[in-house]
């Protein structure tokens, strides 16, 4: 007897507001899930970095030590360390539990826009407005970067790290893919200043949003365009884009206060999620569940696929 093949579930979109967290740290410059998606990190314009619990929405820890507003944060795979970057030109490696600064790295000539750990949290990569990406060693006590990638001709706006690749978006309108294994650098010309880049979850595609209000999905190996998504507004701000947990949808912030959901394959607008009146500055998608974080002005909103009560139940179970 053959069981019927389970029908593929319709992908759930996080469209129900679960919670709003007032961060009390000025404007939230960036909001990020941690590696497993149980915690939220918010970067405040009041120089502080805050760690929240997603399920309860409570503040767990505040990390202070930056000299100016914090612009980006990333957590290590084991949640033991954080790295953050700031307008004060520094990159800080934090100890999560104690909240102490493990290392403060200076070297960038301008404010540092983005920072990422590599997979094993042995290297921090930071991209700055000075046009360089610096690779900092977390294992040694050296205060100089391992390598400086200065191929970009304008500020670095966004970078992502995969197993052996670095994806770097720059304001010079190019997405650079550094392949360490092959020893190659692929430069994809987009033309308009890049605001955000990310890998697809399967690692085959790259997503890049640019200031011409377009998000493009490119094939990583050939550079061919697989999809182009537009309709949102992105002309002046450095807005984030991302892919949903199952690579089914493409998400992007917008300056009109919405988050746009496009179907990845069809390129059609699936959902226009109203977040607020101001610019949605940053967003982050949960690594495994349909859950979304958006940052607008001074608060962070948590969105889920189901309304609050059922979500609670599921989280309890």
């Amino acid at each position: 007897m053959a069981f019927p093949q389970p029908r593929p579930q319709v992908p759930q979109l996080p469209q129900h507001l679960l919670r709003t967290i007032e961060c009390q740290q000025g404007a939230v410059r960036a909001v990020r899930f941690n590696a497993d998606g149980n915690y939220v990190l918010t970067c405040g314009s009041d120089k502080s970095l805050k760690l929240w619990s997603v399920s309860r929405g409570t503040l767990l820890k505040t990390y202070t030590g930056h000299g100016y507003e914090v612009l980006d944060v990333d957590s290590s795979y084991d949640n033991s360390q954080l790295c953050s970057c700031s307008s004060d030109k520094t990159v800080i490696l934090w100890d999560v539990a104690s909240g102490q600064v493990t290392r403060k790295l200076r070297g960038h000539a301008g404010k540092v826009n983005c920072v990422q750990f590599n997979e094993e949290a042995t290297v921090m990569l930071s991209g700055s407005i000075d046009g360089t990406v610096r690779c900092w060693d977390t294992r040694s006590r050296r205060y100089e970067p391992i390598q400086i990638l200065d191929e970009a001709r304008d500020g670095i706006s966004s970078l992502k790290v995969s197993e052996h690749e670095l994806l770097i978006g720059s304001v010079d309108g190019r997405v650079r893919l550094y392949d360490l294994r092959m020893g190659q650098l692929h430069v994809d010309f987009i033309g308009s200043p890049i605001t955000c880049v990310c890998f697809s979850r399967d690692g085959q595609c790259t997503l890049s949003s640019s200031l011409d209000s377009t998000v493009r999905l490119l094939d990583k190996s050939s550079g061919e365009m697989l999809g182009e998504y537009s309709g949102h507004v992105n002309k002046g701000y450095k807005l984030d884009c991302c892919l949903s947990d199952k690579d089914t949808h493409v998400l992007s912030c917008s300056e009109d206060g919405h988050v746009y959901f496009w179907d990845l394959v069809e390129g059609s607008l699936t959902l226009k999620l109203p977040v607020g009146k101001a610019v949605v500055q940053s967003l982050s998608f949960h690594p495994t569940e349909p859950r979304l974080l958006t940052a607008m002005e001074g608060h962070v909103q948590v969105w889920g696929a189901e309304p609050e009560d059922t979500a609670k139940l599921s989280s309890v179970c």
Partner: protein
Amino acid sequence: NMASDEDSDEDFVTYGTPLEPLEEDEPIRKPVPVHEQTVKDEKGRYKRFHGAFTGGFSAGYFNTVGSQEGWTPSTFVSSRQQKAERQNARPEDFMDEEDFSEHGIAPREIVTTEDFASERKDQLKDKARAVSSLAALIPGDPGLLEELIAPARSSIGVELLRKMGWKDGQGVGPRLKRRQRKQNTDAVKVHGCALLPSGSEESEVGLNPLQALGGGSESAHINLFTLQSDRTSSLFGDRNSGQKRRGGIAGQAFGVGAMENEDADIYHKDSMSNYDTVLGGEEPGDGLYGWTAPQQYIRKKNDSKRDVVYLGRILDGFTLASQVTEIKTVYPPPDLPRDYRPVHYFRPVVDSSTVSPIVAQALLTSRGHLSQEAPQQGRHSLGSSQRRDMLGETPLQGPSSVFELLGSKDRERLNEIRSVAKEQNKSPDSLTSPAKTQASSETKTFKPFQKNPQKQARYDLYINKLKKGDKEALESSLDSSMTEWERGRERDEFVRAAVLYKPSNSSLSSRFTRSKHEDDTDSVEVTRDQENDVDDKQAAVKMKMFGKLTRDTFEWHPEKLLCKRFNVPDPYPGSSTVGMPKIKRDKYSVFNFLTITDSSHVSREGPSASKPPGSSTTLPHLTPEVNKKSRWDKTGKVSEPKDPLSAFLSETLAQSDGKQTEPKTDEEEKEEDEEEVRPPMDLFKAIFASSSDEKSSSSSEEDSEEEMAPSTSEPIQISAEPLNPPVSAQITPAPDISKVPGII
């Protein structure tokens, strides 16, 4: 009274601190053993005893003076703003706290002041009091009460003595001058502190109060003279200043030593009247004074007999003048007018050269001083020829230089030697010395000796010769008819002027030093692989043809450590390069000049991309993205669709006279214009190749251009691989580089 009836306790005066009231059940406290008893000073600090028998304690911080750090002089102030003030030290400054206490050396206590003293009343005050008493509420003399309870100012002993005729500072009897007394008794000359023999008359002021009252038995003196309050301070010590000094240390606080016979005068104090305060003031026996005539002689000043008076007093070696010296007539100063005010206002002196003519005119009319001439030159600032001109002399006819005295043969020989020497010096020096190349472009604008045309001419000559590398430029350009001294001066001036006064760009360039490594001056590091033409890419993007057209792939060398950290094998084992492979490119090749606005990012024909040969000669197009500037805050439309040139131009022309709303389009427009105007490469080649043949009219640039020529006429290699070797003696000076974009 009523209060005391109710509470009789209140009548008592309590003195001291009461004991704590004992409680009934309280167990009797153990007495504190001696070693646990502590002594505190009045501020509650523990005192430390040292010495088992003395019971002495340390002062303050364990024998340091007053502070933890030890003794710091209070006058020591060390800062620029705050200087130490001079302080007059009083004895109290050197005393300890204990000395001011009740049993100290100088107790500080309450003393009746003049106002409350009953003894001598002010007449004025009495009067005032009487007047006020009339107006007072209670009639009668309020002074009466004061009389009754007048505070005693002096002790009863003093009071008694006064009644007996004793006076302060004088004693009993008529007042005597000390000097007189001395003259009478003894003629021994004593200088300085005169100590009278102890056997002689004890007191010059008569009665010694101690002796007088104690009857000579000093040991049993009655303390009659001191008030209760005055007990510790010597009342007499201050007042009868006539007491003689015994020698050794005397005073109240010190006891009598064992070796001293008498201990009578331990209460005596020294006083200043024991000492002579004037040097050599002993009066002579005859009563006449020295040659400075005292009053009685001055009175008889005009008397003719004054000679006689002085007769015996003329100093050895001097004689009286036979003539009376004339009295100098003193003229009174002129009478000042009534409204004269002794203040002088200076008018501003303005140099006409520094002020605009309008201002100068205004100053002139407003009677402000405008210095018309340069400040009056001294004799030495004028040349001999100038002075000659001023004096109207005719120039000297004779030979102006030694040269002319020589025979013609000798002269020829000398000239020959000189020219040979010139030849030798000329070539290497002129090429290498940067100072001279700097000086070369200088003189046209700047004329330091403009006021003296002859001198300026000589200076120009000097500069010109300097440019040509003439070693003797200075010597030969000077005026041989001038004196040696003048020539020396002028030499210095010229050298200084040549160094100092350069036009702005050369002075600016002098601020920069050349880099240390010779290599760097000729070549610049450029990444080997360059991107493809951005034009094509933009077109591709517009057509959404991402892929091969928009992608460039380069060789990139990750750092070994980075590979290790990423757990990736090094893709280029054994390679030492990191990042993009770099090559050295000739810095001053024409190719670089053409792209000088953006030298490193010009798209060139990469080795991978294949292009028609025609396209390789088109000049690199500059993309706006290339410019390093952030454009986050730009909200305008970012990418302008690229049209064919003609359409674009017409569009941008329409935009250009409009507002600059879209900076990027403006940029592009400029680029486009540039591109359109740009002539083909051959034209550049022609220009630069021919420049070596042409003689430039300006002599100053000749040399540099000639040097420039070989480098420009080198074959220009667009493809990256074969490098231009550094051209020999390639010191293309900076002005030439900047010239090239100007041509474009």
